C-alpha cells in the first residue's frame, strides 16, 4: 500500500505499547499446581523453540521454522480453559499451541527434523503439527486456512451437544483473509461454540499492522460480527487464561462464539531464529528491546515470587529440569529415523497405497 504513516495512533488502549505502566500479573485465582504448570509450559515452549532455532542454525532443520518466542503466554493461557473434548487448530507458528496442550517435545523436535517419530510421522515438519490425543487437530501454514476448520469443529460440537468447543489460533495478518470474516459470520449466525484466538503480534512477516489495516485493534471485527470479544495483554498468562475461560464458558453454554485478541510481540524474525531487525518495515532494535522487558516468563516469575507461590530455588530447579528434558529430546530426535520412501505414495489416501 502507499506509505501510510506507521506512527498512527493505537486503538488498543496501551496494549500495543510495551513501555506502558504494567499492571502486575494477578495470580490470586489459581492454585500452586496450576501456576507451576503454567511456568513449566512457558519454559518448555521457550526452550524448545530456542532448541529449534539451534537446529536451524546448525543446518539440521531445513523446513521453515516460525518461532513464537515472546508469545508463549497466549497458548498457555488459552489451553488452561480447554479440556480433552475440545478441538484445537493452529497455523504456521504453532509449536506453542501444540506444547501448551501437553504436546511432547521429542515428537515436536522429531517432526521439525522430518523424522518418523514426529507428530506428523515426519511428513510435515515444523509447519504441520498434529496431536489428536491432546485435542490438537492440526496446524498448517496456509494463512487463515484452519479458521473455518475450527468452525466445522464448532458444528460438530453443537451436534454432539457435549459442551465442547472448536478453537483456532491465527495472527493479525490472518484477519486480512476473507475466510476469517466468513468464518466469524458463520459461527455467529449459527451461534457455534468456537473460540477464535488472534495472537496480535502487530506484524505480518515484515509489515507492521498499521501498514495493512486501518486500526491495530482486531477486536473491532468481533463487534462487527456480533461475537463476544476480549482484547487482553497477551504477555500476561493469567489475563489470557481468564479471558479465554470466560469466552469458552459462554460458548459451552450456547452463548455463541468468542474472539480473544491477545496482544503480544515476537522476539525473533518472521521465520528462523534471527531477530530480523534489518528487514522489517519499522522493526527496530528498540521495539524488540522494549518488548523483551515485558517478556511473559520473567513477568510470571516475578508474580509467583511476589505472591510467595514459588521460591527462587524451585524456579531454578524447574528451569533446569525442563532444559534437560529438551536437550535429551533433541539428542534423540537427531538420531531418529526418517520415514520410509513408500510413505510418499502410501499416505496420499487413507488406508494404504493409492489405488
Amino acid at each position, binding site marked *: 500500500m502507499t506509505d501510510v504513516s506507521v506512527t498512527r495512533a493505537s486503538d488498543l488502549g496501551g496494549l500495543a505499547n510495551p513501555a506502558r505502566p504494567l499492571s502486575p500479573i494477578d495470580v490470586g485465582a489459581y492454585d500452586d499446581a496450576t501456576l507451576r504448570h503454567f511456568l513449566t509450559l512457558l519454559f518448555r515452549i521457550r526452550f524448545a523453540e530456542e532448541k529449534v532455532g539451534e537446529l536451524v542454525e546448525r543446518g539440521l532443520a531445513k523446513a521453515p521454522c516460525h518461532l513464537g518466542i515472546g508469545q508463549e503466554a497466549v497458548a498457555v493461557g488459552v489451553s488452561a480453559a480447554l479440556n480433552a473434548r475440545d478441538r484445537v487448530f493452529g497455523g504456521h507458528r504453532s509449536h506453542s499451541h501444540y506444547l501448551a496442550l501437553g504436546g511432547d517435545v521429542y515428537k515436536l523436535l522429531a517432526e521439525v527434523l522430518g523424522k518418523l517419530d514426529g507428530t506428523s510421522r515426519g*511428513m510435515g515438519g515444523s509447519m504441520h503439527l498434529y496431536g489428536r490425543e491432546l485435542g490438537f487437530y492440526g496446524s498448517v501454514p496456509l494463512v487463515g486456512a484452519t479458521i473455518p476448520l475450527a468452525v466445522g469443529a464448532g458444528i460438530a460440537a453443537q451436534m454432539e451437544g457435549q459442551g465442547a468447543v472448536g478453537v483456532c489460533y491465527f495472527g493479525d495478518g490472518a484477519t486480512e483473509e476473507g475466510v476469517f470474516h466468513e468464518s466469524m459470520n458463520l459461527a455467529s449466525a449459527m451461534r457455534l461454540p468456537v473460540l477464535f484466538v488472534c495472537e496480535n503480534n502487530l506484524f505480518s512477516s515484515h509489515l507492521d499492522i498499521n501498514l495493512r489495516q486501518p486500526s491495530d485493534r482486531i477486536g473491532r471485527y468481533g463487534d462487527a460480527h456480533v461475537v463476544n470479544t476480549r482484547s487482553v495483554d497477551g504477555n500476561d498468562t493469567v489475563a489470557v487464561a481468564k479471558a479465554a475461560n470466560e469466552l469458552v464458558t459462554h460458548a459451552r453454554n450456547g452463548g455463541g462464539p468468542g474472539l480473544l485478541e491477545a496482544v503480544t510481540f515476537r522476539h525473533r524474525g518472521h521465520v528462523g531464529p534471527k531477530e530480523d531487525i534489518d528487514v522489517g518495515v519499522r522493526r527496530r532494535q528498540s521495539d524488540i528491546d522494549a518488548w523483551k522487558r515485558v517478556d511473559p516468563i520473567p513477568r510470571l516469575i516475578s508474580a509467583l515470587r511476589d505472591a510467595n507461590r514459588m521460591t527462587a530455588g524451585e524456579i531454578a530447579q524447574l528451569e533446569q529440569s525442563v532444559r534437560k528434558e529438551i536437550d535429551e529430546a533433541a539428542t534423540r530426535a537427531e538420531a531418529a529415523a526418517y520415514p520410509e520412501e513408500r510413505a510418499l505414495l502410501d499416505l496420499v489416501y487413507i488406508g494404504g497405497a493409492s489405488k
Partner: protein
Amino acid sequence: MTVRATYGEAIRLGFEYLMERYSNVFCIGQGLWSPWYVGNSMTDLDHKFGRHRVIDTPVSELACTGAAVGASLCGYRAIVIHPRMDFMVLAADPIINQAAKWSHMLGGQAAPAVTVRAIINRGGEQGAQHSQALHSWFAHIPGLRVVMPATVQDARDLLISAVLCDDPVMYIDDRWLYDLSEDLPDVVERDLRSEKPRVLRSGKDVTLVGSSYSTLLCQQAAVELEKQGIDAEVIDLRVLNPLDTTSVVESVAKTGRLVAVDGGWRTAGLAGEVIARVSESLGRFKSRPIRVTLPDAPAPTSKPLEAIYYPDSQRVIEAVQETLAVAR
C-alpha cells in the same frame, strides 16, 4: 425390490439412505432450504431430517467448505453442496490445499472424510460464470477422489460410496442428466476404492470414452452407429481420480480406435488424459484418436452460440466416422 427413479431423484435417495442410517452425516450448502437451487435432488430433506442436519448457509463458499472439512476431521461426514461449480472456485483452498493434503501432510493420521458435491449447471443462456465443468482441475489433484456418475444408479450409489469413503471425495453431477430414468435395485454399499470405469457396451470397431453427460452422448452415438453397422464399445469413467484406465487401454488394444468425449475444455483436460494414457500404454492406434470436447472458449449466452458450443451425439458420431475413414 426395484424402484423407478430419475437421476435427480436417485441423488435424493442417496442422501436419504445416508442420513437415515448414519447419524454423523450432514449436509451444508447454499440453497438447501430452497426448492429450486439443486433441482429435485434434495427436495424436503430439510424437513425430513431437520434443519440442523441440512444446513442452508450464508453466501460464503470458502468458510462453508472449510467448515465441512473441519467437521469431517471431527468424526462427522459432512457433505458440502455447491449448486454451481463456478462458485466453488472460491472454495478451492479447503478442497485442494486442505482436504486433499491433510492425510499425507500429517502422516496419514487426519482423514477429512468430507464429500464435496459440485453441480454442473450450464446452458439456458446463463453464460460464462454459471456453466463451468471443472472436473479436470480436480482430477489433477492427488489426495482427492473425484466421481462423476453418468447413470441413475451411479447417481445414488456413488454418492453413498463417496460419503462412506474415508478420503475427501468430490461428487460431480450434471443437471442435464436429471431427467434420465431407470429401475434401481436396493442399495448395496460399495467401497469407493474398488469402483472403476465400466464398460457399458462392448464393441469391436471403436472405443468411446466418456463420463457423466458425455457418457450419455457416447451411448446415444453408439445406438446410431449400430444402425450404420459400426460396433462401438462405450466406457464410462465414473471415477476420475485416482483414474484407472486399464479397461480403456484393453478396449483400445482391441478396437484400435479411440474417441474421448468430455464436457470440459479441451486443453489439459480429461479427454487428453485418456488419450495420453492409452498412447503411453499402446504407442499406436489404427487411426488417430480424437477428442470431442468444448472448444477452448468460455460459455456464451446467446442462443445460436450456445447451440454450437456444447457437443452433442452427432459430434461423437462424426468423430467416429472420421476415425473409421482410415481403412480398418
